[in-house]
């Protein structure tokens, strides 16, 4: 089996000293030997400095690399490949500064099955990020910030954090395969349940939380040994296929007395089929998380080389719901790499009913902000380029469990920044909607968009700018 490659082979010579394996001879002081000084100087297109450094790193570590944040893959067609085409002569715009535009977003009411569908004031909410990946202060700040603007947060897989429950007017409780800290009381205190079968950053694999972040409180909430490298299961323990899931969904409805909607979150891989199945087995909301989605920690290969872009995932998901007659019955939430109200508006136009933001919300809290510069330097990064969620050494206290660092995350200030950011994003969405002559942000559609690249048009079916035809197959 390939599980254990450290077999019985013995070299016919003494094992090399670790120092030498790690290129210890003549290495530059303070620079890990896997990162050559030619890093930013360019070279072969095939063997770029990044490709070379990756080989060096794997050769020293004997394992794949793990890191947090989101993808470094630069080849995704993004939201920036789409542009809005506001009302001009054929259509009449609404007054951007004066006329109102509805942003109310209802999730999970389409089937008419649950007593309390979620009513959000805005079409944006905070993505599932666990306590464990994030500090308690960060979770609490997100909760208050979201509550202030009438939207919600999601627990993530680490169980229900009391601070977050108290802070969030509306809270989605995530049921991950590992079921950390899951109990009936928490299910019933949630405003919605989210069954997670995957995430955009690392579809096809379970959660990952390195030992540095498995603090006493995290270990207690997850029933894990302290300091252990937590690698969660990818499959749920008690249902092993979408057909069984139909029964599980019924159980959860009974457990919550048919009160709250049930979400299903998936990484975007084959959304055309996956979303149709999710809708057919009976969930109320499907969350599709594109490959640009972030994470606290993941094998880097999965971050960079799995999944499909958010913009194409939304189209496939919407078409899937249309095809199986579930549009209107099942809500569609998009996530993955959303940075601004402009991105949100594009998601809605492509077919999402709402979006959730993870990395963006962390950044609003202070992630990558230019403070504590020495600490960034110790990590070998700098503000604007930090991706060290995995080491738990987050200089600004967002993605860490170290008390000295979490203290840097001020709950009140963070909450206010999140609230203002969400407000600003919503303003951006309405500004675009009104420019397109729409009095409700949910009326944005594909016709309001044009593609700026062949790829974006081919991946989404949005008409290409100028010629007004979708890239034909």
């Amino acid at each position, binding site marked *: 089996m390939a*599980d254990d490659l450290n077999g019985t082979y013995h070299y016919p010579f003494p094992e090399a000293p670790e120092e030498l394996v790690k290129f210890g001879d003549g290495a530059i002081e303070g620079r*890990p030997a*896997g990162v050559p000084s030619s890093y930013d100087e360019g070279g072969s297109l095939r063997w770029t400095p990044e490709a070379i450094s990756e080989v060096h*790193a794997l050769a*020293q*570590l004997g*394992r794949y*690399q*793990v*890191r947090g944040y989101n993808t470094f893959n630069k080849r995704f067609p993004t939201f920036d490949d789409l542009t809005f085409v506001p009302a001009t002569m054929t259509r009449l715009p609404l007054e951007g500064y004066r006329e109102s535009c509805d942003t109310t977003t209802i999730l999970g009411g389409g089937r008419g099955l649950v007593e309390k569908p979620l009513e959000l004031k805005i079409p944006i909410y905070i993505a599932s990020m666990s306590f464990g990946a994030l500090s308690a202060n960060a979770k609490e700040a997100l909760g208050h910030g979201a509550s202030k603007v009438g939207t919600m947060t999601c627990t993530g897989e680490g169980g229900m954090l009391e601070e977050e429950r108290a802070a969030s007017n509306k809270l989605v409780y995530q049921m991950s*395969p*590992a*079921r950390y*800290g*899951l*109990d*009936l*009381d928490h*299910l019933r205190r949630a405003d919605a349940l989210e069954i997670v079968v995957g995430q955009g950053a690392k579809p096809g694999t379970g959660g990952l939380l*390195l*030992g*540095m972040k498995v603090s006493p409180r995290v270990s207690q909430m*997850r*029933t*894990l*040994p302290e*300091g*252990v*490298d937590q*690698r969660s*299961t990818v499959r749920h*323990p*008690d*249902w*092993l296929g979408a057909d*069984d899931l139909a*029964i*599980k969904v*019924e*159980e959860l*409805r*009974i*457990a919550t007395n*048919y009160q709250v909607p049930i979400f299903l979150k998936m990484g975007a891989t084959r959304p055309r089929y996956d979303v149709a199945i999710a809708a057919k087995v009976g969930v109320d909301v499907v969350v599709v998380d594109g490959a640009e989605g972030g994470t606290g920690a993941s094998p*880097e290969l999965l971050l960079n080389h799995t999944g499909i872009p958010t913009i194409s995932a939304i189209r496939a998901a919407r078409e899937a719901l249309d095809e199986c007659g579930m549009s209107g019955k099942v809500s569609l939430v998009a996530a993955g790499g959303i940075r601004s109200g402009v991105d949100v508006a594009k998601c809605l136009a492509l077919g999402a009913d709402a979006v959730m933001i993870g990395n963006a919300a962390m950044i609003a809290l202070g992630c990558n902000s230019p403070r504590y510069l020495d600490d960034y330097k110790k*990590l*070998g990064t700098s503000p604007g380029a930090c*991706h060290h969620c*995995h*080491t*738990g*050494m987050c200089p600004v206290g967002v993605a860490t469990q170290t008390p000295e660092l979490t203290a840097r995350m001020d709950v009140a200030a963070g909450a206010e920044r999140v609230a203002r950011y969400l407000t600003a994003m919503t303003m951006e969405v309405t500004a675009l909607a009104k420019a397109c002559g729409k009095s409700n942000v949910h009326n944005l559609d594909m016709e309001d968009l044009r593609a700026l690249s062949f790829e974006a048009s081919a991946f989404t079916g949005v008409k290409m700018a100028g010629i007004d035809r979708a890239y034909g197959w």
Partner: protein
Amino acid sequence: MSSRYVIEVGNRHIKDVNEEIQAAAKAHHSLLVRNTLSRHNLGIGLPKGVDVAFEGSVGYYCGGLNTGAIVTVEDDAGWGTGEGMDAGHITIGGYAGMSAGAAMRGGTIHVRGDAGPRIGVAMKGGNIIVEGKIGSQAGFMAHAGKIIALGGAGASCADALWQGEVWVAGEIESLGVDAVVKEPTAEQVAEVDAILEPLGLVDSARNWRRIVSGQRLWYFESRDANAWLMI
């Protein structure tokens, strides 16, 4: 007991059945659920202080998310019996299907017959006692709690445990990844006997194998943050 409340399942909507069970549990100490026909999702989220007996066999997730009820299944149970339970006692008269006690946090599951694969998968606490044989991958990634098999165990027993323990008195087909057999101490045996005692299952002649994690899978590489600074 004269005041045993009887509930008929048959072809009724399972939502209605559960509503009736929940309502009856408030007024009666003892419920009998009849004509179960191996239906799924019977007795979900049962409260403390009630005794619910299911006649015949039940389907998936019976007694799931139990918070303290005493549950008895006369014959067999389907998948995920007592999944996520917090407290209480579930007895299965016959065979327990796949993943019984999945992610349970407390309480006891007692299986009189054999158990299917992945019993106690991802369990976080509590005890599972199986009088017969446990299926493959028993206790897969169990975080805590004990699985005690008086019979044998299937392949990949105690696969990838965290802190749970699997005790097997009979033959073990094969051990799972990172599973290690440890000689139990007298105190540890006494602890297990204390769990078996109320069930009348103590037998001093048993040759216990106590299986715990070898902890090889606990650490990806190192608890040292510097190991992860490469990227």
